[in-house]
């Protein structure tokens, strides 16, 4: 139960031309899971290591419950980090690995043995104390690494790519385990990932970083519904961007005039965006917010179908390629070359600024 505040945190590596982390300010809520998300090299692991105390920031401050921890060395900070490649100590058994943190704190052997057994049961690996790390599967190693971090009852749990080394079927299992222990101990958890899906399924809050700078911070759905920029939208799978000119609640585009309700930007040049799953191809009744198009290609995806549609509005305007996702049955209703009407519901249209 610890709130973590990052205040204008900046890290510049010697010899690096751009800061790895630049003026990062975040309030990480207590007892929740927060993801630091971004492509590789965006500074997210650096930020995590600064919270753990393993890297000293050049500027800024880190507060746990309002108190600066910058002067606290990592071993006293009670923010335990589990590294990406689980890093089980190869010369120790599984039991010694899990008990390592307690041994360093001078806990008695009998207590350690008991707590190690409890922890192994918690991560569903009971009785494996005597095994060597290399005798375990990748998923088991990851769970041992989690147990090793949890046993010292940290105030803040820091996880670096906790699911990235796992097969698809183990990911779900590990995800449930992390959420289970996180809720059981009500742990403030921060994890780093490059995979937006992983962030969405695991996190209560996502902080998206590009090139060391915070792009957007909020619960997962805002990154789909209300991205702050074209880059953020693209990172979360946004593909439809239509340049336009905003005037009040109307946007003039090459595809015609569109109504939008969400209008956070001032009038002028904007990019109109709508997620593929929100465009409707069966716009029988609607006559506003409709564009003409021709099916260019279709892909059947099992649970749904994905279309590329060339939308146009008269020969003098450039056509725009839009992607549309429909339920799987749509693949039989719309064939390549067919003319369709695209309905873009006003409440699903979102605007982002044009990037220079």
């Amino acid at each position: 139960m610890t709130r973590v505040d990052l205040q204008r945190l900046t890290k510049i590596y010697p010899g690096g031309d751009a800061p790895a982390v630049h003026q990062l300010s975040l309030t990480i809520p207590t007892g929740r899971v927060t993801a630091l998300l971004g492509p590789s090299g965006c500074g997210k692991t650096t930020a995590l290591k600064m919270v753990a105390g393993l890297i000293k920031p050049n500027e800024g401050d880190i507060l746990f419950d309002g108190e600066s921890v910058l002067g606290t060395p990592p071993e006293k900070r009670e923010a335990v980090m589990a590294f990406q490649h689980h890093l089980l100590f190869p010369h120790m058994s599984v039991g010694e690995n899990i008990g390592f943190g307690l041994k360093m704190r001078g806990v008695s052997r009998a207590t350690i043995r008991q707590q190690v057994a409890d922890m192994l049961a918690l991560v569903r690996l009971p009785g494996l104390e005597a095994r060597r790390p290399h005798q375990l599967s990748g998923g088991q190693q990851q769970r041992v690494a989690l147990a090793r971090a949890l046993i010292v009852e940290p105030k803040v749990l820091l996880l670096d790519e906790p699911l990235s080394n796992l097969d698809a079927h183990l990911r779900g299992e590990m995800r449930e385990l992390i959420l289970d222990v996180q809720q059981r101990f009500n742990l403030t958890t921060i994890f780093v990932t490059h995979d937006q899906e992983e962030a969405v399924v695991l996190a209560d809050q996502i902080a998206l970083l590009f090139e060391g700078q915070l792009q957007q911070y909020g619960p997962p759905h805002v990154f789909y519904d209300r991205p702050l920029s074209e880059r953020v939208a693209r990172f979360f799978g946004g593909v439809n961007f239509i340049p336009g000119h905003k005037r009040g609640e109307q946007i003039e585009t090459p595809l015609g005039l569109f109504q939008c309700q969400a209008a956070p930007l001032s009038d002028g040049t904007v990019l109109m965006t709508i997620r593929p799953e929100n465009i409707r191809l069966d716009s029988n009744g609607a006559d506003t917010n409709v564009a003409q198009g021709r099916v260019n290609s279709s892909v059947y995806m099992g649970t749904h179908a994905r279309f590329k549609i060339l939308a146009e509005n008269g020969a003098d305007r450039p056509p725009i390629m839009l992607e549309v996702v429909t339920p799987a049955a749509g693949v039989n209703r719309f064939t390549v070359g067919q003319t369709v009407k695209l309905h873009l519901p006003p409440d699903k249209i979102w605007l982002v600024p044009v990037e220079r």
Partner: protein
Amino acid sequence: MVGLLLPFLPLLLWSVSHRWYFPAIIPTEWSWRAWGYVFGTNSQVLPALGYSLIIALATTLVSIIIGIPAGRAMGLYRFRGQSVVRFLILAPIIVPPLAVAMGIHIVFIRYGLANTLPGVVLVHLIPVTPYVVLIMASVFANYNPEYEAQARSLGAGPGQVFRYIALPAILPGIIVSGLFAFIISWSEYLLTLLIGGGQVITLPLLLFSFANSGDNALTAALSLIFIGPAIIFLVLTSRYLTGRHAAVGGMGRL
């Protein structure tokens, strides 16, 4: 193991021979004279053995204390001027020791280190340290310092990190480089002669003077004593030279 010890059989025979001339296959007359001299009350051998052990162990210890941080810097980090530093570390192996020792001798006389045991240990560090640093650098090149960060985060202080994480990982390298250091120091002749100035008599010094005098029995006995500790060290550390715990790759199993 038998094959390893076979070359010492002639030495053993020589050391107990009194008369052994061609074409006899084994000595024609036997004698314990050489061994009697070696362990006799007026013998110089036992004090020399003591000096040699003290010097070799001290040199080994100091070179490892230098070699761990130096090897870590060379193996783990990339820094400006690293190739120059690497060359300077190797220089004592390349430059003829005599050229260096003459200059050092003058400095040592000025500081009262000539003809003393610490002086000999210091001068032995010149040929020994490069090997220790090189071996430790290769050990650290395969070392993942993230393990230390992980241990810190789990609650280990800097001292505990060294004791429980770094030391077990680099121990094979320490043992192998210690073996090299011991053997190089143990068999050093020229530098001991120059800096020891006849005051610090080690086994190689005695060995050379006996070999010069042409007393084959005594030379053989002394050679066996000289080889003994090196063999013992080699046997004790062999499991770190080869096989699963090997510090140096590509050497296979003995």
